């Protein structure tokens, strides 16, 4: 620990891999070695990578469900309030509370709220938009949007040690290792 405090503060140590398989095995090894504050980076979604990080469940489905319920109830409530309480009109002798006629806008509002809350929820949970990030200080990291795979163990991890962690990362046989400056 003392070593990490003496050296200039860094964000973490970044290892580069050539394939999704190497990345997932490296992530598993790092997790087994006790590292928790780390993340795997890839050009496309890899289900096994988030599993290896111990990140099994996202809260996105719950947000979508709650958004959908909110949209559905407020959609129906809006129509009920308008056509029954605030502005009742006799249309062809139909009852004011013609609930079957309200189903279509209720359904559309459910979908609209579910979709929008899901999108905003996903970006909010991911902390995006975030145009600047320490990882972007490493030139090689730009290949993450192309064909390379990265594992970053962050300095904030309690087990992090500049020398030990670097040695551990080298044992994973990556293509390259870089320190990530802040």
């Amino acid at each position: 620990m003392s070593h990490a405090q003496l050296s200039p503060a860094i964000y973490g140590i970044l290892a580069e891999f050539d394939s999704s398989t190497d990345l997932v095995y490296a992530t598993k090894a790092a997790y087994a070695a006790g590292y928790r504050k780390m993340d795997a980076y890839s050009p496309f979604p890899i289900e096994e990578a988030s599993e290896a990080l111990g990140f099994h469940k996202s809260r996105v489905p719950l947000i979508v469900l709650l958004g959908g319920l909110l949209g559905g109830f407020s959609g129906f409530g809006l129509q009920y309030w308008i056509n029954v309480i605030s502005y009742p009109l006799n249309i062809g002798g139909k009852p004011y509370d013609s609930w079957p006629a309200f189903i279509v806008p209720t359904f559309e509002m459910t979908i609209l709220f579910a979709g929008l809350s899901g999108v905003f929820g996903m970006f909010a949970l991911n902390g995006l938009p975030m145009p600047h990030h320490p990882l972007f200080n490493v030139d090689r990291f730009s290949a993450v949007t192309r064909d390379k795979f990265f594992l970053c163990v962050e300095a904030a991890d309690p087990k992090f040690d500049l020398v030990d962690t670097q040695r551990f990362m080298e044992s994973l046989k990556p293509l390259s290792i870089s320190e990530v400056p802040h």
Partner: protein
Amino acid sequence: MQQGPEENTVLMDVPWPEEPPVLGPGQTFGSMTDTIADAVLTRPIGLGWLVGLAIGMGLVAILMAAVTYLFLIGVGIWGINIPVGWGFAIINFVWWIGIGHAGTLISAILLLLKQTWRNSINRFAEAMTLFAVACAGMFPLLHMGRPWLAYWMFPYPSSMGVWPQFRSPLVWDVFAVSTYATISAVFWYVGLVPDFATMREKASHPLTKKVYGMLGLGWRGSARHWKRYEALYILLAGIATPLVLSVHTVVSFDFAISIVPGWHTTIFPPYFVAGAIYSGFAMVLVLAIPIRHFYHLESMITMRHLQNAAKIMLATGLIVGYGYLFEAFMAFYSGSTYERFMMQNRWFGPYAVFYWSLILFNLVIPQVLWAPKIRANTRWLFLISLVILVGMWLERFIIIVTSLSRDFLPSSWGHYVATRWDYAIFFGTIGFFAAAMFIFIRIMPSISIFEMRQLLPESEVKAK
């Protein structure tokens, strides 16, 4: 596609022996990224593109002029009259919104069904949806007569103290179409974010880098982000699927809820949805065939895609044909004089030539798609798709005009003829659609890069 022995092999796409592959040989993560991104970033602006854009923009100019004149004079410049109050505006609305449906079908329904071949055509099909919905949305607004009061359709607390009337399918339409436009736009944008990040890294000009960087929101491919992203993507597909089916259903309610002969029928929702997918896939082929040719994307949009689209057209075309058959059957089976007359009027009345051309275009000619040789020929596919697009437009024309022009009382019959302003606005929206597509393929990756990477066998995590 054939199902392999394990669940995994569905994803890996095992084609039938004689089927062309979904992805051409020799591709890597890097080569795919370059092919798609370079079509935007490094490819010089070609003469063909400029001419295409100029034609589109020229039609947009005509649209602007026609709309200006419309606002000055009013909807009287159109051919609409009493009894035919809907005319081109609603024909074009229904036609355009139907075209949009194939985009959502490809991006959402085929995603849920794990049809990985969709990965190379979903991006521009979604763009097609957006632009088609934009064209569709113009027509009801212009048809209102006073489009600057369009916001009256939304429930908002106004000083007049009045509210929309929710028993009307026209109000349902407002909700269905605006939700559809919004969800299609966010679905498209969410799909683009990781690709914008790729464009950010690949762009060389600082300003281009900045713009793509902003659009990419700082995406860095974190596994945690991907996990949430995938969860959302599949959920959006899950909610977009009933949504897309509901939109054309609600559009068909505009007709089916009324009592006009030829409209008041329960077959309308499925018949409209099938027709929407039919015309939508025709538009997908009309766009995909030139794009893959001029941008040399034959190894990503392969014959497999075109053939699958042709098969879907064949299937939905038969459903539409079933709709025509049952419309006729029910007209006579119902015993209603008015329904029976409506059918005879379609067959032998003043618009009979449109009816029989629609049968020829939608039902007879597309049957050549049964021949594998025709499905393997891009020229034939392109031509047949154009024929289907015209046929589907004629179908909307027949439904709206024949029923309205001769309904219950012969004393109130009329005749509808479109004016030059009707045509100007219709072709203007085609120009708008074309111009938007031309601009789109120049500034955004027209194939989803990150989803294409997943098609490579190297993307799979193997046991060590």
